[in-house]
């Protein structure tokens, strides 16, 4: 029962975010002012600064998967390391070869 309640809450939250984003799109608001978006900034392919991180899903020197709320970002490369890790803020270093985005359902 508690799990079901949590899923329901998550779904409600996603629906609310969808609605807010739809309104923002209609009013031509920049996406960074809307809730639910994460912010990724890259310096070449050697460093990536990610804001809005909810947690680390997998971490080794070739793959780092980060939970960005409604998205999962997977960084692939070699010698990947987390230069700094704070609540909601990650600086990822190393040779980044690719970034994949997927949702919670893996799509």
């Amino acid at each position: 029962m508690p799990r079901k309640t949590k899923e329901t809450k998550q779904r409600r939250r996603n629906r609310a975010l969808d609605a807010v984003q739809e309104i923002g799109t209609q009013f031509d608001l920049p996406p960074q002012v809307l809730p639910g978006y994460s912010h990724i900034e890259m310096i070449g392919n050697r460093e990536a600064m990610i804001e809005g991180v909810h947690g680390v899903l997998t971490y080794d020197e070739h793959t780092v998967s980060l939970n960005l709320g409604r998205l999962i970002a997977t960084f692939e490369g070699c010698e990947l390391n987390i230069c700094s890790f704070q609540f909601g803020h990650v600086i990822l270093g190393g040779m980044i070869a690719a970034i994949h985005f997927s949702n919670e359902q893996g799509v």
Partner: protein
Amino acid sequence: MLIRLFRFLQGYVCFCAADGFPERFLNLCANNRILLWNVVCKNGVLRAAAHRKNYKRLHACAKASGCTLRLQKKVGLPFFLHAYRRRVGLLIGLGLLIGMLTVLSQKIWSVEVRGNERLSDETLLTYFAQNGLKPGVWRGHTDIKSLEAKAMQDFHAISWLSVNVHGSSAMIEISERVEVASETDDTPQNIVARKDGQLVVLEIYAGQRIAKLGDAVTRGNLLASGIVENKDGTTRLEHARAYAVAQTRYAHLVAIKRKQKTRTIGSIKTHYTISFLGLRIPLGCTPREQDGKILLAQELSWMAGGKKMPLALERRSVLRLEESAVLLSDAQLCLYAAHALFEEAYDNLRGTKVLEQNAAIKMDSMGATARLEGTAHENIGEAAAIASGNSMPAEE
């Protein structure tokens, strides 16, 4: 770089977390607001760094994620100071160092003089030391402006003076007064011969010509008179000026005894004194100058970067001299006589053109006699006050 410095000042620990779930460990750390950096996960072992105060909180996260936490390295100033917390001497030394630097930076370390030519460094430094500017005095206690004004009054030879204090060194910049040539003297005078000879050049610039070229003159003969006769028979007084060169003969005789007194060094006593900011610390008894002794003083100052430091070692040596009689050999006697003759001739023949000369040294059992004679061209004109005793040159 700045972040590294702050981390070093605060102190941090490097640790590794093995086994369990490293990702969960990271998430728990983030949820507990624990900052991690340099996180590297390799072969299932996670290595990272965290602030030293957060290390205890990491244990709870590690326990929850099933990781085994192991401390690898402690880095930073707090750990360094912790290792020396019982060394009280170091703390006292550091305090003394800071205190000495604070006190010594408020004092004058060195005083230098620049720009002086006629006035010696010693004279000026002694004067300024007597008036309160010397190594060891407090920098702010010296009234520079009044000192400059006083020095300008006391030294007539100084036209401009400035005392610049840069840090702990005082530089006295001086510009000496340039003496303006005095006005020409118009006092009536004659030109007379100061030596016997035959005139070879006679140029009269002022006054009345008395002697002629080729005349033989003796000492005191009038060459140019300051009493000039006008065409109407009256006379006027002038400041006679002339250039008179005559062929003269000279002879110099020097006698040297074979038995000479020499002074040899009998004993040397050396004493050292350390001088620091005007404070003199003798290393032993201070010698005094006595009869038959020579006192030699030498100061070895510590120089750093071309600047004179306030620390110096003064060496004072007292030499006891012993007199003894020595009989010179013929070669030594000849050398002594030649040297003495050269010194005498050098002073007397300065400014003359030597035409011919002969030198001879005669030696006997008592000593040696050196003789130098010859002829030369030299300026024999000299000024003389107008008097009634001047005579005309003898005509040949």
